[in-house]
């Protein structure tokens, strides 16, 4: 096992920024400077750059993958990028800034433990920055980096950059971010200053480089410390002793008696002996085994796919949620929620849609919006409907009661999708409660 790399963890992060903030260039720079771009990719970029009449390679061509993107010089859709250093592996959701910015930012932010928000040093915090920051706050991305890009174009002026930092700190605070969750980094994606290599031109800056920060920031999200939740995906029942010949049969005991509930731990930790309750029915029992294909575990934390066995024979199926008995979600069919509207057609009054929460899909009646968030003024305004990129608050009535947590407390059991029954399209990202309660009525 000599060349096996030592265990390292994985950070999922997202980038957001307006058009022309140089986001694709920054991502290209991160990939290039971490040697994650290989020779054939660089050659392709160099060829394409020459074809476009450019004198230096356009690093944004590394990330704009679709024909239409290269032809139009824009990024259309969220792209996922991968790179690693000896310290950590990274999954980067690169979200485009202009069209459908909410749709893309919400998508990228939903799985991110950190977001890098770009601003142009010449323009500072602009309306688009406020919108993106609002979406990132709403989605409860645990950490933010404000990347002040193009500092080479403002002569590395400390005063100017400090002013942008201060301006943004005020915004972040008003959106509910703790001061220590935000890191400001002055950088030049084009020249490489403070991206991977520390810049000699910013001696006044004592913070980390962007990569240094990404490598050292804690990965463990708030889900780890939250109460245990396990949405049941599938019931594993081998049915006969000849089944499962791929697995080591002796490990499992008599297979015809085996009945396990498979799922991915949404939050908290589970151990054999833990008292749990199955929702929505509400029957309580005890966990006897936490199984994986590699054998039983003493405990399993958020993010891990497991199969649990329970002490009592309970009628339990996909869609049910196994939760910590001493800290349970609310089981309700009337849900106050915040919606990010992602559909091309607006919300119809009293729309009957499908709601997917965890592993359960049920019918839902969506009430008239109570308010829409004006992301420019960060206030709530009256709304009759919600259209693409709008964020608003509604009351939902579901056909089946659902065990829900406030999104602000547990993201996995506080989130849902609204789906259009005829087309099957995803119309909205839903968050239980009001994660931006800090915003007041305008």
């Amino acid at each position, binding site marked *: 096992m000599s060349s096996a790399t030592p265990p390292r963890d994985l950070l999922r992060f997202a980038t957001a920024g307006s058009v022309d903030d140089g986001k694709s260039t920054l991502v290209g720079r991160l990939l290039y400077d971490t040697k994650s771009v290989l020779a054939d990719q660089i050659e392709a970029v160099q060829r394409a750059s020459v074809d476009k009449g450019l004198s230096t390679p356009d690093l944004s061509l590394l990330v704009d993958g679709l024909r*239409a993107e290269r032809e139009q010089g824009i990024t259309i859709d969220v792209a996922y990028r991968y790179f690693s250093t000896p310290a950590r592996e990274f999954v980067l959701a690169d979200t485009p800034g202009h069209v459908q910015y909410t749709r893309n930012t919400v998508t990228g932010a*939903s799985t991110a433990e950190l977001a890098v928000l770009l601003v142009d040093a010449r323009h500072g915090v602009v309306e688009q920055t406020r919108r993106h920051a609002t979406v990132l706050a709403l989605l409860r991305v645990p950490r933010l980096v404000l990347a002040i890009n193009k500092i080479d174009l403002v002569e590395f002026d400390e005063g100017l950059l400090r002013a942008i930092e201060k301006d943004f700190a005020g915004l972040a605070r008003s959106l509910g971010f703790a001061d220590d969750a935000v890191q400001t980094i002055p950088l030049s994606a084009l020249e490489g200053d403070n991206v991977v290599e520390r810049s000699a031109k910013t001696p006044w800056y004592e913070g980390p480089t962007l990569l240094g920060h990404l490598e050292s920031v804690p990965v463990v999200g708030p889900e780890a410390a939250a109460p245990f939740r396990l949405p049941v*995906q*599938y019931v594993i*029942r081998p049915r006969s002793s000849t089944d499962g010949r791929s697995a080591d049969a002796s490990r*499992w005991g008599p297979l015809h008696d085996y009945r396990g509930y498979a799922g*991915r731990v949404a939050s908290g930790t589970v151990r054999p002996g833990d008292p749990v309750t199955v929702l929505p029915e509400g029957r309580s029992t005890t966990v006897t085994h936490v199984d994986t294909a590699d054998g039983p575990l003493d405990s399993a934390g958020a993010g891990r796919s497991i199969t649990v066995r329970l002490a009592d024979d309970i009628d339990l199926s996909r869609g049910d949620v196994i939760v910590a008995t001493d800290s349970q979600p609310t089981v309700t069919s009337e849900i106050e929620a915040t919606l990010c509207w992602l559909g091309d057609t607006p919300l119809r009054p009293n729309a009957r849609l499908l709601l997917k929460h965890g592993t359960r899909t049920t019918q839902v009646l969506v009430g008239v919006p109570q308010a829409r968030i004006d992301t420019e003024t960060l206030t709530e305004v009256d709304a009759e409907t919600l259209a693409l990129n709008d964020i608003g608050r509604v009351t939902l009535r579901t056909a089946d009661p659902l065990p829900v947590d406030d999104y602000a407390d547990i*993201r996995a059991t506080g989130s849902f999708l609204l*789906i259009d029954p005829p087309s099957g399209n995803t119309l909205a990202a839903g968050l239980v409660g009001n994660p931006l309660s800090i915003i007041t009525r305008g």
Partner: protein
Amino acid sequence: MTLALDALDALESESIHIFREVAGEFDRPVILFSGGKDSTLLVHLAVKAFAPAPVPFPLLHVDTGHNFDEVIDFRDSIVERLGLRLEVAKVQDYLDDGRLVERADGTRNPLQTQPLLDAIVENRYDAVFGGGRRDEERARAKERIMSLRDAFGRWDPRKQRPELWDLYNGRHAPGEHVRVFPISNWTELDVWRYIQREQIELPSIYYSHEREVYQRDGMWLAEGPWGGPRGGETLRRLSVRYRTVGDGSCTGAVESTATTLDEIIAEVTASRLTERGATRADDRLSEAAMEDRKREGYF
């Protein structure tokens, strides 16, 4: 203090979650299985997702007819060992009865699309697992984990559903299906590190061996019924291995002396070429070769 999951554990858990979602929500899923390393990894993860019960899906191989014998033998041994059902859709059948014609360049990879789509329709598969990874290629970087295909099997990158949290929306109309990519977020190096950790068996051609090869377009192609060497191309006996396994006519070998997983991992870590750039002629056809094939229903 809770420690974060190791990257490989995190990726494994994500893939298992995806397999279980599909098992819970679809009627007739199938795993595309060629015997290559990525689809072998898929099957390994599927076994882990449902243990101690068997994998609740059959396998489907779209066979170009330009095969490496070692890979077909390996494919059959896996199917036998796991007790799974294997369907084979053969490009050769389509060539024999004229539904497809051989391309001028002899490459059969693009010819796989029609037999694949026909097999999906005939067997009424509603979810098709593939071993595609987003780090492979630029168009694949924009692919969803669960990706809707219309009745013609087409991918429209501008009409993709947003994919949020780990809530996958696989709703589809009759005749439509979804492609599912459980190892979307794995890199080539992750795959090799995991194969090493889990001691997953692979076809022997992934390891260094002696082979008669000839050079075309900067790649080492193996001698075979797919045409070659042609005039001016000469056979040489070299120590090579394969980084990807596809249609024999367009899959190149790389010169290598790596005979163990340690050596392969060291080689992949040091490589200055992507696996597709180094070994796949089908992706060199144009800047958007993969995107164009995906739009037509390729995996």
